[in-house]
């Protein structure tokens, strides 16, 4: 059986639509970097093993190196270029800048995107591997340094800037720091109760 190996697709990136032909082999990462000149998203391993290519897909963090571009059609993609509001940095970006949450900067776009989504995941009540009791709790456990470390472990930093990264994220996630709404505010629903009602 022979199949077409390329398609014309429309990608929704940072609120803008881009229509382009793609080889099916093209990953979202390569489409961003090589086709759309959105090179803020970095390629560290191309194997899902470092997190440098993290973007938000429908508001959730994902590695763009394992996401085929053709399969991203119809989804909302947010890259590091779409995080700041004009000249107004997102609080996570500002904290990375102020608290030196990086060194070479190559993992930074991925760290920033990942942190923004991670804060949302925590706020939605998602547990992590270091959450003492994963059973649903009346009150969400605080976003401790230990929680941030575990939840951010999918973003490797070879310069060893983790201590400052954790400090920056804790600062940006502090209650009272105004954060823009996430690109897609669905997490509460995803963690939530709709499917569980009326059956058990």
């Amino acid at each position: 059986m022979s199949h077409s190996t390329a398609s014309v697709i429309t990608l929704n990136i940072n609120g803008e639509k881009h229509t382009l032909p793609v080889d099916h082999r093209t990953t979202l990462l390569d489409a961003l970097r090589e086709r759309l000149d959105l090179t803020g998203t970095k390629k560290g391993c191309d194997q899902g093993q470092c997190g440098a290519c993290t973007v938000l897909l429908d508001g959730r963090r994902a590695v763009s190196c394992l996401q085929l571009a053709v399969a991203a059609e119809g989804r909302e993609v947010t890259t590091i270029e779409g995080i700041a509001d004009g000249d107004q940095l997102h609080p996570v970006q500002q904290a990375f800048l102020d608290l030196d949450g990086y060194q070479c900067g190559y993992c930074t776009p991925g760290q920033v995107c990942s942190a923004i989504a991670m804060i949302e995941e925590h706020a939605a009540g998602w547990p992590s591997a270091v959450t003492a009791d994963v059973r649903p709790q009346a009150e969400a456990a605080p976003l401790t340094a230990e929680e941030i470390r575990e939840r951010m472990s999918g973003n490797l930093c070879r310069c060893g800037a983790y201590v400052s990264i954790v400090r920056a994220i804790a600062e940006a996630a502090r209650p009272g720091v105004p954060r823009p709404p996430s690109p897609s505010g669905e997490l509460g629903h995803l963690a939530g109760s709709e499917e569980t009602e009326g059956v058990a």
Partner: protein
Amino acid sequence: MTTMTGPTPVTGAVGTAHTRIEGLDKVTGAARYAGDVPYAELAHGWLVLSTIARGRIRSVEADPVLAMPGVLAVLHHGNAPRVNADYTGLLGRPDPTVAVFQHDRVPFAGWPVALVVAETSEQAREAAEALVVHYDEEPHDVAFFAGHPGTYTPEGNPRMQAEAGKGDLEAELTASAVVVDAEYTTPQEHHNPLEPHAAMARWDSGRLEVIDSNQGSTWVAEELANLFSLDPSSVRVRAEHVGGAFGSKGVRPHQVLAVMATTVLHRPVRVVLTRRQLFSLVGYRSPTAQRVRLGADPDGRLRALDHQALNLTSKVHEFVETSAGLGRVMYDADAHHTVNRVVALDVPTPTWMRAPGAAPGSFALECALDELAEKCGVDPIALRARNEPDAGPVSGLPFSSRNVLACFQEGARRFGWADRDPRPGQRRDGRWLIGTGTAAATHPSGVAPSTASVTAEPDGTFTVRITAADVGTGARTALTLIAAEALEVEPERVRVRIADSDFGQAMVAGGSMGTRSWAWAVTSAVRELRELLVLGDGIPPEGITARSNTAEAVGALPMRERHAFGAQFAEVGVDVVTGEVRVRRMLGIFAAGRIVNPLTARSQLVGGMVWGLSMALHEEAARDQASGALVGADLAGYHFAANADVPLIEADWVDDPDDEDPVGGIKGIGEVSIVGVAAAIANAVWHATGVRHRHLPIRPDRVLLAGTATA
């Protein structure tokens, strides 16, 4: 008359925390690294590596691949442009691995055998994967172990003799009341900067332009000029942002391949190494096998120090990991013997990796010191104080400054060392056995000739041009502060441009020598400029520029033992159920001269300590003996510390003045902070469990099998 400043001169830029100049670009994704710069008509090269460890290439079946969609060229030893690797560059003779495609011999697994160039990276990748290469395979030897029959003592070099000694070692060991005789090993470790090596090359109006990721753009430009027999002025290399380097980013096959391909195809070509390819093409830290013998009086005073280190190198190039060099700086003894030996195998050539020699060497020596402290019943810090030398133990030269004991004192105070029960296996926190450990750190503080220019602009700003590299160190920011202080202006009025070989020769970002070397050139140029400005009466549109070259001044620097020092402290938990070791806290106190930018300096020091943690517990490449190739050569198989492995780590410094220093007492800080960390952690694991772990990394299986000595 033109003045430098407004009404009052501004000083104090150096020593004041400043966020990174390029920070905004880094947090918004605007910073362009080597693989990020777009070019029209860009073609993509994908490298094919040998799958055999030794032999000859019989044939490269290029024709079927050339017929594949988008494929533009297949370069290999049968058709590639010739290069000349017979020269001596800034840092010695080139590793022949960069002289790609010049013959049919394969000296190791992962040797470059072909480059496929195509219109898109997807096409290049598939074609490279499809390329059939036939080999005549020969038996290989990749086994590294102490006592390998091929072991030899290398010639040594001006910076490091292979072997040094004084006194009668065996006699002093015999006369010693306490003797430690232990063997240590460290595994093969890889730099793995998060940004893989990438280069774009093109010919532009008769000049070769290379956009690269490197530690020194003039260095790479000179190497490329040598390799391709070009006039050095016709090569321009730039590396505006570099995503980590750690010793791996010099001239490497990717730049050479990009130049070859653009020369053949007459269009821009980018070659990006894959993560897996990095493991055989950009160097690595050799595994080491080390034996340390210490003989001491009952109170711990050293009578004998013997450190014998072995590393491997390739059969095409010699690299010596100078692990035994540390004792020549740290400790004196009546009899003192240190030697670095090498064995050549059918493997890629190792290279400098963050604190070469000192990182693995300190693991052995500083663990042995801890073992000696235990045997003597002396506190490990007191033992070091007892053996503090007045002058270089081997050289006899005075130290320019040496404040290692001040580091220990400050560190002990802040870490709570005085409350430590020296007995092992005494503390428990739930499932964790708890222990603490310490070790000393040191790294040479060298300097090398560099040039710089500083321009006074008509608008009252200043532009510094120097071929420095900011590989994440904060060099761009540090040089801004240094220039601002020398100019006595606010840092906001200084623009520092770096990483462009057209700016002229400068030291590479390496060996903890970058900032010190560049600072000297920048401050010298500023001094020149200030003299010009005093004479002049107004600034023309093109500005007024002064240039410096520190070659003569560097040559005139008096001979001293110049080093940074430090004291490392670690607390670990060891889970005896699973064998997992977790570092709970670390503190490093350093005597590293004058700290230029406390914000970025702290990041760099902590980063080095994270490297040490990672070295102690995680990092290790595995070579398959049957195939001679690495297995698990990716970031899932080669672990370095993830965020969850790294606790709160603090780094700080003590005063470390050197009033005689022409560079104002600035020392490098990139490497001293990894030194001693693995030893401090291993010593803490002993303190937790009562078992000495002399082989890195301290993995769960090793801890499980070793058990505990006191439970």
